[in-house]
């Protein structure tokens, strides 16, 4: 269970690390600002749902085949 203290610690550490990265001014320092993470996650959820649908269809088909085999046997 995440407590408020844990969350504060986590945020503080992350802020410290972000400040360090900013300080060192890495060559692609604007990559986070320019990249659309929100849309990336929407796209990810969409493709995962497609994968899950295809996968559940395939497994139900194989279940049907298995039940046919059982009946034949």
């Amino acid at each position, binding site marked *: *269970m*995440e407590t408020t203290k*844990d969350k504060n*610690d*986590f945020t503080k*550490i*992350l802020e*410290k*690390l*972000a400040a*360090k*990265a*900013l300080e*060192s001014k*890495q060559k*692609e*320092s604007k*990559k*986070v600002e*320019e*990249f659309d*993470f*929100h849309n*990336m*996650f929407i*796209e*990810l*959820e969409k*493709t*995962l749902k497609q*994968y*899950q649908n295809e*996968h559940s269809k395939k497994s139900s088909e194989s279940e049907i085949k298995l039940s046919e085999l059982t009946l034949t046997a």
Partner: protein
Amino acid sequence: MEAGEASFFTQNLLKLSTFAYNGTSIATKTFLCSSRTYKNYLLNLEDINLDIKKLFLNLSMPKFIWVTEIYDAEGFINQDVIGLVLLDATEPKSTHVIGAIIDNVFIRKNLSENISVEIPFESIKSFNDNLKNYGNN
């Protein structure tokens, strides 16, 4: 989340992260791990920035997680991990990115948080403790 989904999700995450690893061939390794074992491994890592270690140890994790280690394809043999993706293995319906480092960008995505921050990360030694005692009994 089952193994196929975890692998599919991570591969897609890396594919869609167009800001990362441009021009670098990468290799990945995905495995299931208990968060306790994984945190223990992080705790004992020596060649890692202390704040990165603290950051991951402070992450709230479910009992089981999917871990994907990202390697530079050329450096794969040295087992130097240049990125990480940790996914919730216990949540069947939604996908929670517990924490990820992709090309020096820390990403966290769940119902209440959506974080993407650039942080300094070099590399860490690969996790090799899964099923360590398997077959020894």
